[in-house]
């Protein structure tokens, strides 16, 4: 069966520090991969999505970047975190035109 792993679950980082969140999927091939951010009590904002290795589409201009070095690995990064980067980050995968499966999420607090 397919599983998605996202870590860490919580993270507290100082302003200006770098960020790396990792997401891996098991049990499927060539999934579409997604990064979302959710502010407290708000909706899901799509940050990046990828339909294949090395293919990244950015939905909003921001202080973040994403990479897909392997088929089932998706990484969210920042060189210098801002206070406004705080939030709940969710990784998800789907196959074309199917439902999305989410990781457990990373709660990031920038202090």
């Amino acid at each position, binding site marked *: 069966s397919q599983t998605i792993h996202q870590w860490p679950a919580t993270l507290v980082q100082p302003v200006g520090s770098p960020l790396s969140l990792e997401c891996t999927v098991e049990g499927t091939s060539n999934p*579409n991969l*997604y990064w979302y951010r959710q502010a407290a*009590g*708000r*909706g*899901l904002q*799509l940050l990046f*999505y990828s*339909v294949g290795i090395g293919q990244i*589409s950015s*939905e909003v201009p921001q202080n973040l970047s994403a990479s897909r070095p392997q088929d089932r690995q998706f990484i969210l990064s920042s060189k210098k975190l801002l206070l406004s980067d705080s939030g709940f980050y*969710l990784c*998800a995968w*789907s196959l*074309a*035109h199917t*439902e*999305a*499966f*989410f*990781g*457990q*999420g990373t709660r990031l607090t920038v202090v």
Partner: protein
Amino acid sequence: GQQVMQIPQYQHVQEGEDFTTYCNSSTTLSNIQWYKQRPGGHPVFLIQLVKSGEVKKQKRLTFQFGEAKKNSSLHITATQTTDVGTYFCRDRDDKIIFGKGTRLHILP
């Protein structure tokens, strides 16, 4: 691009009352999916509707897809505390853009 609007944004109901959230689009949807996110959790897929006028039920939850495939609704009968959370709809496309969701609060 296509936008999916979801209303209401928040809803407080007394336990045992019914609840409905609506998803509306300005253009025809290919299909619609519904998700539930419990407080502190991640969204979980509930159901997908494909056909015009389709109605599906999951216990106390009833999902409808409009005849014109431009709107959808999720109705919960006799809410329970376990129904607390945010309900999202999305049009099925590769980007997976979600509506803003409806946060349901249950008053005991």
